[in-house]
């Protein structure tokens, strides 16, 4: 199985010097989409085109981008802001990293068009704390874009002003939540705000703000350059445009693959990523990053689109596909992920702060062979008490690995309790402490 698709976002990423402005002007869009937007289109028309293209947010929720921009209060006397969410922290996700590192001008052009569309003059690229070298690349290329007149004042002689700044966070998963990102940008702790008000009404510095994922903004120049009809024709209906998939786990060739959303999970794992390593059997797939419920091998012959994966009971999320082979102990996996979530819980609201830690302790006890049968139902009950009751979606994300692994692999949990040990043949796995992401 292989996927034949001419990449649009990542076409040149493996060529030397792809990050430079000269390369971008010579080979890629070269700010022609920005020129087209500011010289021939009204801001409202840009939004209409993005809406017509069917572009949906690539950060995880899949919210239509044009609609998000439309909600930004146009008549507010306050300044408006674009925040580019580059806090890519979801375990298994590494697509934005690639875009910013190898194709930064596409991000910058997307930011500028987004600013033009919502009437903002400033875009902040909030970049994850660990992406230090990426920040340096971005800042270098932003500087180049300023020198070439694509950023700054009076762009293309139209009177449109746009500044793009890179702000590096301190490395918190929660900072990827849009209101927490805004708080962090304001210099506060990265903790979510209550919604409403939504950022479109009161965001950064209490001004109307649109927060968009890096990949989302990278799609915007494509829509403008080639037109919404061309864009909407890529991939299935309501799931249009090219999508970056981060395939990782026990596959032969992990990596970022670009494909329309008609591609199936099976094609991505067994085609793009070269199938399971050592010829082992696929046991489960996490389709959209660690906070999405696992799918079983018989569920993966479906398009990797927002709607199809949602129909299968999971989420496309950030399209971080983690393939797990038969050496994976699902209890251990859930424990490992909960170690991440309890570490990354911001601690603001009660169920998540207290519950994630409790879940981890229960999982660690079961995994260590000291659990009780009642602990399994307790895990489900604690998860139920967290799910949907937290301030932000973090709580739902944290319980997904627990609930879905118990649903599909309850036998493994029971075996741990009954036999006091792991029954999965996984000799490679040490009994050490769980991996702490950072």
């Amino acid at each position, binding site marked *: 199985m292989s996927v034949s698709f001419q990449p649009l976002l990542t076409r040149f990423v493996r060529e030397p010097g792809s990050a430079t402005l000269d390369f971008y002007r010579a080979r890629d869009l070269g700010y022609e989409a920005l020129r087209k937007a500011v010289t021939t289109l009204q801001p409202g028309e840009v939004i209409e085109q993005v809406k017509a293209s069917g572009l949906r947010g690539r950060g995880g929720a899949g919210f239509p981008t044009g609609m998000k921009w439309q909600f930004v209060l146009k008549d507010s006397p306050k300044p408006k802001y674009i925040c580019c969410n580059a806090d890519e922290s979801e375990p298994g996700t590494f697509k934005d990293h690639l875009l910013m590192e190898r194709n930064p001008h596409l991000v910058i052009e997307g930011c500028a068009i987004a600013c033009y569309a919502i009437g903002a003059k400033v875009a902040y690229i909030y970049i994850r704390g660990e992406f230090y070298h990426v920040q340096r690349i971005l800042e270098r290329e932003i500087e180049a874009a300023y020198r070439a007149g694509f950023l700054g004042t009076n762009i293309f002689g139209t009177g449109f002003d746009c500044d793009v700044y890179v702000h590096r966070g301190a490395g918190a998963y929660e900072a990827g939540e849009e209101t927490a990102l805004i708080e962090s940008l304001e210099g506060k702790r990265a903790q979510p705000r209550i919604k409403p008000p939504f950022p479109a009404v009161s965001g950064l510095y209490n001004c109307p703000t649109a927060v968009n994922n890096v990949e989302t903004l990278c799609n915007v120049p494509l829509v403008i350059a080639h037109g919404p009809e061309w864009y909407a024709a890529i991939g299935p209906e309501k799931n249009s445009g090219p999508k970056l998939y981060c395939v990782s786990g026990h596959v032969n060739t992990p990596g970022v693959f670009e494909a329309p959303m008609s591609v199936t999970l099976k094609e991505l794992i067994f085609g793009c990523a070269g199938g399971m390593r050592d010829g082992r059997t696929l046991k489960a797939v996490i389709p959209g990053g660690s906070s999405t419920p696992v799918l079983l091998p018989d569920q993966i012959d479906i398009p990797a689109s927002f709607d199809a994966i949602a129909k299968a009971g999971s989420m496309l999320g950030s399209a971080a596909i983690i393939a797990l082979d038969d050496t994976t102990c699902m209890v251990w996996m859930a424990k490992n992920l909960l170690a991440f979530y309890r570490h990354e819980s911001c601690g603001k609201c009660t169920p998540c702060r207290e*519950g994630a830690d409790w879940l981890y302790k229960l999982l660690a006890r079961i995994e260590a062979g000291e659990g009780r049968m009642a602990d399994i139902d307790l895990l489900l009950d604690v998860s139920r008490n967290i799910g949907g009751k937290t301030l932000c979606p973090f709580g739902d994300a944290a319980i997904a690995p627990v609930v879905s692994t118990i649903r599909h692999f309850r036998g493994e949990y029971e075996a741990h309790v009954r036999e006091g040990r792991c029954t999965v043949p996984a000799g490679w796995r040490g009994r050490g402490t769980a991996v702490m992401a950072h």
Partner: protein
Amino acid sequence: MEAVSLTIDGVPVTVEKGRTVLQAAIEAGVRVPYYCYHPGLDIDGSCRVCIVKIEKMPKLQTSCSTVCSEGMVVSTTDPEVADARAAVFEFLLINHPLDCPVCDKGGECPLQDFSYSFGPDESRMDFPRRVFDGEGVMADVDFGPTLMLNRNRCILCTRCIRFMREIDGDAQISVADRGNGSEIATFDEEGVHSLLSGNLMDVCPVGAITTRDYRFKSRPWDNPAVADTVCTMCSKGCHTSVWLKGKPEWARGSKLVRITPRLAPEINGYWMCDIGRFGYHWVEGERRLVRPIVRGADGAQAAAGWHDALRTVGMLLGAAREGGSGALRFVVSAHAATEEMFVLKGLMEALGEAAAATVHWQRSEKDQPAAVKFTIPVTDAPNVNGARDLGYAVGAGNDGVPDLSALQQAVNAGSVKAVYVVDPGPAGSIGDLSWLAAARTAGRPAVLIVQAVESSPLTDAADVVLPGSAWLEKDGLFTNDQGRVQGASRALAPPGDARDDWSILVDVAHALGVTLGYAQAGDVRKAIAEALPGGPYADVDQVTFARPVKASHWLRTSNPSERWKWDFMFQDLPPVKGHSVQTEQGYVDGRVLPLRPVG
């Protein structure tokens, strides 16, 4: 007022537009628990216990952050709500030490009360609790000069953080670390340094922040009575409540244990400063004057009865009054109530040009952040405006600087034969009068009479000392810096032979042959109302002063946001000697004059 109608638990409720569901529930008397919500602070939405079910909304909503809309149907008792709420209580108590028996908040703790009402019967958590540096009080750390912090008890409602950020204007407190390791912290463990620090104990819904002043001093059920009064430590006139500790077996009666703020939206809101909160110890202190003192022929001071003391005063002042214009000088502290100043004014009018009075007080600039929302005035006395309204010269405005230089010159020149000091405030609150004590010791003036509440170098130099009453021991009118006439109520009996200051002045007048004709404080207020018609004093004779009431009743009628949660406290307490606890029916809710717009 634009109104919104909704239904909470089947009961129709109408509230002002913009109110949240939680506020509507509180107003309607519907029980919804909350921790991060505080009526004086911004909405946070983090504790999650106030969740309710609202029809047409997919998930349970936090009522504190949901604004009421027309026709909303809210349920706080739906099984789904009850389950979810109980789960949050289970979460909250996972790491809470449950050291209620040794916790200062025990008995008046919202976590305790709400957990009993809404929490699960038992916890399913069987792992060891998180402790920061040991179980129980071992986790206590100093939290600045006035407070202690117990991190194990903290439930991270962040009210303290928001208080410091929003009200104090200096965000000294923050959360350190994150997730389950989150803890309340100050930079470099310096603690809170603020003149508003005591409010942090009030806002803390658990025993995490306690004041050093009240710590381990009493339990709520040992404080059976509360009196509503007004603070007199500065010109702001904050509404306060005085808590009295008493046990049936105490022969002495009840004792003052703490002062807390009382909601007064236009004056102090929900807050008060540390000066008023912690500066009450002198009232029951060792330096209180409990008997009149007269200097004998041998030059030594000796305790005396009122009869002898007043006769001596009459003799000494009677001689001085013959000394010509300005020979008899009164120095009045602006801590004196309006009644006292009014009686003194009547006396001076009768004495004619021989008598003159000067009002004096202390000023101090308060070190507060520029962004502070609760400012403490520079005038450290409660009644400068009252003195001005009665015709005393106190300068213009609220920040006037008192001036005794003319008096000092007259004393030095020898034209003053006698000085009478009326000083019912704590020692030193009248200002620096050490020069007067020295002048008396040097023989000019020949007579110094001090009517005061605390012994001081000034009373040591006096010929006669008359013990008066502190503000908590008498009913008195004070006019604050907004021009509001407020009644401070008597919560305690004066110590020993000490008496109400106005009545001392009436007797002094009598000793000088002046009959003022006031038999009780009400007569004085009636005279004030007649003397100052039409203005803020026109109905001061109608003021009903509060009396100590049962704490249970007080708690129910005080802060409306807090009122229902105390229902189960303070039941069936035995009566306490020393003060009469009034019945709820007998308590007229007229503790002070109704608030009037200023100007």
